[in-house]
């Protein structure tokens, strides 16, 4: 029997699963960007705390990053070029994970600044790198799922392609 004519339950469910992944990832980026965009100086300091670049570069990255996160969140929310948006999300998340791993490896005591303005930890608090990485890997899985199955419901892509 032709699978196209008789789609399995799973095949019918994929667009819905992907839709959840798309909206979830959109919420992640919108939240992360929204929390940082109100204080770009603090965002720059959070990037600087990773000690991976000069302060001037860190300031620029810290200022641009929240705007990119919000833009990416909005693009995922409306579902435009979903596969490309998912690919960019995945690249961004891999960079974040690499940054946290490198901070961990060098024994820095910092807040990752993922959903906050970050910076050095106050005395007594310990870094939660393992949890931060685990969470980001979870988000990366969402992006991977979208890359693999980019067809979603309620998306601009679907509208433009005339899908119902």
């Amino acid at each position, binding site marked *: 029997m032709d699978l196209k004519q008789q789609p399995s339950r799973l095949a019918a469910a994929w667009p819905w699963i992907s839709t959840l992944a798309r909206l979830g990832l959109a919420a992640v980026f919108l939240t992360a960007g929204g929390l940082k965009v109100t204080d770009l100086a*603090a965002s720059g300091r959070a990037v600087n705390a990773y000690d991976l670049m000069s302060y001037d570069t860190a300031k620029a990255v810290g200022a641009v990053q929240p705007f*990119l996160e919000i833009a990416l969140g909005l693009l995922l929310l409306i579902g435009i*070029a979903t596969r490309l948006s998912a690919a960019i999300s995945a690249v961004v998340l891999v960079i974040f994970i690499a940054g946290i791993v490198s901070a961990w490896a060098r024994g820095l005591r910092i807040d990752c600044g993922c959903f906050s303005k970050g910076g*050095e930890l106050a005395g007594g608090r310990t870094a939660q790198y393992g949890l931060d990485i685990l969470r980001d890997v979870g988000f990366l899985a969402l992006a991977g799922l979208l890359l693999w199955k980019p067809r979603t419901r309620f998306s601009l892509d679907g509208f*433009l392609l005339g899908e119902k």
Partner: protein
Amino acid sequence: MSKGDRGRDRTAARRIVEQQKADERRRKVTIWTSVGVVAVLLIAGFAGWGVLANQEKKTDASQVTTPSVAVDDGTAFAVGTGPVTVDIYEDFMCPICHEFENQTGPTIAQLVTAKKVTVRYHPVAILDRASNGTQYSTRSAGAAAAAAVDGKFVEYHNVLFQNQPEENSDGLDNAKLIELGQSVGLGDSFAKAVTDKTYDTWVTKVTDTFSSRGYNGTPTIVVNGKQVTSANGGLPTTEIFSQAVAAAAG
């Protein structure tokens, strides 16, 4: 060829053409939406850049009133005249800074009196987010600069820590900052500087200098150019601090 065969061919041909049309449409949609995505991200990136550049203008040298008594490129207030330099970067909203002041402040005061150290206080503002938008860190540091200009930095610094507001409260309002100033003998010129926010942009510059030196948290304590922390990188005990000063004195 029978009639039926021909009909089937025609149907097949039509299906191929429809398929080609659909593919063409998909290709166009993919290209243009991709262009749209890249454009949106570029615009967002430039927006961030633009906002940053705009904020930097405010801390441009011409916009900053540097307190006349400030040392270390105009970013700190010196207390004492000893040979060992102790740099202390503090945010008046930071509870650990308060803890450090309670714990090690008396020892520092003794070292100053004994002319063993010169303490350079850098009032930074990294916790502006912790005062419900009233920017207490910046306001209090600006007020401390005004106190320094009127010769009462240490007194005002101490009274600010004694009256430290809770993190994530509104902080102390300007009236209270002025009242605290009066309690240590500061007068009208101090009150005017607090009300006019004379030194608030200067605080941003101090904070920038702090970050550019690679420091990320408060309090950061530096003895003769070397950062002093506990073994695990946290707040040093008074003993560790005293040892660092003794070692620096040689």
